[in-house]
């Protein structure tokens, strides 16, 4: 016992020291992070000096999404082609879907070494462009390095992707509609003899019937716990249904699509929202969704595949892919795509829905642009980047279609969409009904002046931060019917928004919109 003592004392000392260290370490964590992430950001913005392609370069790419299983094989093949054509190789870094929103801005703040970054209006494009994260792309730069793209891209797509009149992105070249559709279990609908789902009322009827009769199935589900403040159903039932457009999904301010003066209003303070709350409350009271929906962390599509969820809302393209996937894997389950607002005006995706930007400090900007040019507009390279290796990851069908193979899941799921172009192949098994809906939507696309308006929140960032918080804390539980008295809930929400400075934000937004419209 006696000679054990020094060791035990030493051990205690080490433990205490580690605590001291870790205690003080965490003490400074917040500071460290900000510090570490900013230290090297004095990098100068200098466009590349390499003119020809004499020197072989490795272009680093920042992509969003999980790293595909067959990354090495496909990118190996891709790099052979790129070496031939522009003497370059690409090396991609993937930011997983689970935490990309936290990592992506840090990559810029820390000024890490990368040349190309995937970006989009929903992936920090305006934010990073305004903060100086992207290199400005002048017409000369684009013309010189991106001959194919310069040829193929419509002028309006360039125009739509400018921030304060300057180009920071090579947008994708692929018109689509951003409206959301709902995926439902058509077999269950038929089982209960329900009308086809094509309006908010028929949808309510569907979810209520499922909730009442199908044990162990959530009639509707959403991933409410991920911090989004404007949910898919809000988009369908409030925005699409009333033909409004929210300026930014982080603040509850919208204008009417056909209002040429672009007058903004608080969507939570409208009779339409009051009606919607009753609609939601009715669904919630009939157990249309789990009581714990705001804590749900599961992937809703996976729940639906497993037969635990009977409907969810997403982009048309996504639900169509889901439908095709399930037809392949579980042909006995019958799904259908429902459009709840078929007769309303549709909003076309502006070109910034997907794209690639050049990191401001990159020294390989010109070569990077050449690479993007090929990714988007060189048939062979585009096919590789978008679909993988022919025969392994997809089966080409003619020039513009493909069939999925057993290898398809090994090269998918990340944001190669920045290279979308007319060269895209269509899934030959893409559901005909989704095509029909997409075609019908294209007919109803409504173009309006404010389409390309971008809000600069520099003067009101305090208000934006606080209002986002109020939406999460007061609006989401209210919408999911978790607050008993909806009138009081709505009054509270509006009161909190006012305290958070919604009026100041609205005035600022309105004055920017007025200036934007005046300059048109």
């Amino acid at each position, binding site marked *: 016992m006696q000679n054990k003592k020094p060791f035990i004392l030493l051990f205690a000392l080490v433990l205490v020291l580690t605590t001291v260290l870790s205690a003080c370490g965490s003490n400074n964590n917040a500071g460290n992070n900000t510090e570490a992430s900013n230290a090297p950001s004095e990098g100068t913005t200098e466009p590349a000096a390499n003119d020809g392609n004499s020197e072989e370069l490795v272009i680093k790419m920042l992509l969003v999404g999980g790293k595909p299983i067959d990354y090495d094989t496909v990118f190996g093949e891709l790099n052979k082609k790129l070496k031939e054509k522009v003497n370059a190789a690409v090396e991609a870094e993937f930011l997983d879907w689970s935490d990309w929103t936290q990592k992506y801005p840090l990559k810029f703040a820390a000024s890490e070494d990368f040349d190309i970054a995937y970006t989009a209006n929903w992936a920090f494009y305006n934010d990073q462009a305004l*903060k100086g994260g992207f290199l400005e792309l002048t017409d000369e730069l684009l013309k010189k390095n991106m001959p194919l793209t310069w040829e193929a891209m419509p002028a309006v797509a360039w125009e739509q992707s400018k921030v304060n009149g300057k180009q920071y992105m090579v947008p994708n070249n692929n018109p689509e509609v951003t409206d959301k559709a709902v995926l439902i279990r058509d077999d269950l609908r038929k089982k209960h003899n329900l009308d086809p789902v094509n309006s908010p009322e028929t949808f309510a009827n569907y979810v209520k019937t499922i909730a009442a009769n199908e044990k162990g199935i959530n009639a509707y589900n959403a991933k409410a716990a991920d911090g989004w403040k404007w949910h898919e159903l809000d988009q369908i039932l409030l925005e699409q249904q009333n033909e409004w457009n929210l300026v930014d999904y982080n603040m509850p301010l919208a204008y009417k699509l056909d209002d040429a003066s672009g007058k903004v209003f608080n969507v939570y303070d409208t009779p339409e929202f009051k009606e919607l709350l009753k609609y939601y409350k009715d669904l919630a009271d009939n157990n249309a969704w789990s009581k714990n929906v705001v804590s749900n*962390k599961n992937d809703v599509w996976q729940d639906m595949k497993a037969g635990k969820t009977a409907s969810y809302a997403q982009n048309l393209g996504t639900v169509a892919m889901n439908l095709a996937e399930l037809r392949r894997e579980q042909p006995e389950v019958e799904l259908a795509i429902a459009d709840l607002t078929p007769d309303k005006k549709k909003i076309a995706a502006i070109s910034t829905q997907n794209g690639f930007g050049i990191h401001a400090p990159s020294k390989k900007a010109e070569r990077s642009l050449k690479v993007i040019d090929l990714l988007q507009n060189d048939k062979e390279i585009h096919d590789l980047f978008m679909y993988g290796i022919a025969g392994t990851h997809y089966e080409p069908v003619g020039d513009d279609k493909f069939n999925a193979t057993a290898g398809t899941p090994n090269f998918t799921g990340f944001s190669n969409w920045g290279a979308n172009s007319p060269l895209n192949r269509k899934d030959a098994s893409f559901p005909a009904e989704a095509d029909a809906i997409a075609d019908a939507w294209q007919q109803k696309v409504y173009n309006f002046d404010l389409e390309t308006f971008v809000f600069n929140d520099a003067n009101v960032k305090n208000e934006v931060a606080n209002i986002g*918080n109020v939406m999460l804390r007061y609006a*989401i539980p209210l919408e999911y019917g978790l607050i008993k008295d909806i009138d009081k809930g709505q009054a509270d929400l509006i009161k909190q928004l006012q305290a*958070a400075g919604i009026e100041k934000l609205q005035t600022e937004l309105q004055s920017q919109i007025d200036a934007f419209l005046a300059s048109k």
Partner: protein
Amino acid sequence: MNRHGFLGDVRKNKTLLLMLIPAVLFFILFAYVPMAGIVLAFKQFNYGGGIFGSPWNGLDNFRFFFESGNAWMVTRNTALYNIAFIIVNNVLQIAAAILLFEAVGKWFRKISQTVMFLPYFISWVVVGAIAYNLFNYDVGTLNSILTAFGLERIDIYNTPSYWPFILVLVSAWKALGYGSVMYLAAITGIDTEMYEAAEIDGANVFERIFHITIPNLYPTIIILVLLAVGNIFRGDFGMFYNMVGNNGLLFSSTDVIDTFVFRSLTTSNEIGLSAAAGFYQSVLGFATILLANYAVRKYDKDHALF
């Protein structure tokens, strides 16, 4: 006494000083060097200017926090939770350490220690998932058991009042093993002759514990509590975020400074605003530790940190 001067002291204690080097380096690198970053709290950060070149904007970055109307609520929550954690965790850890020390049977001791230590290694993400599976309304273990006995389900994820208890409990469960090892080590260091003497004088187990073990633990308790007090205005982000997430209904009783700031700023990514919030926490923490240390000093000079 000091015959060899400073260099002599260094030579004499070279092993100890060598052992100190990693800690010193750690603090210089991770605490003192980044301290200059505090200026960010007073700046409108942009990539072009970087940390030192960005323009000053006075106290603008602090406005967001105090104008939100939540500053008081989240500060209060943070402090109350941490006080509860400090008291509950330390009492349980000391109790566990004493029980382990008094326990007979080597195997029993080792096994219970391992079982207690295990939760320390489970990440908060996993703990959050476990909690969700225990407590959720539809298929949670707790509610399944309740319904099996014919009782009403309880809606834990929509009821704020349960959460202070759950969080304190989970925190205690997770920290018990680690903390008790520290106290156990301190107990093992107590001179055994004192126990022998006490036994001869006829002291029973409880008298030994209350008159020898606990008084001898005071220095350790004071150091650990003082260190914890310095962090009283920092919420354990991993814990609160993974247990509660973005569930707005629970915020009134679970929101701490760290989660509030994180949630507000993931949309705007303004580094200046988060730096301001961190600065606010540091100032409050600094003040509390000075105060606590002063109080300890008043009571007993030898036990104070500085």
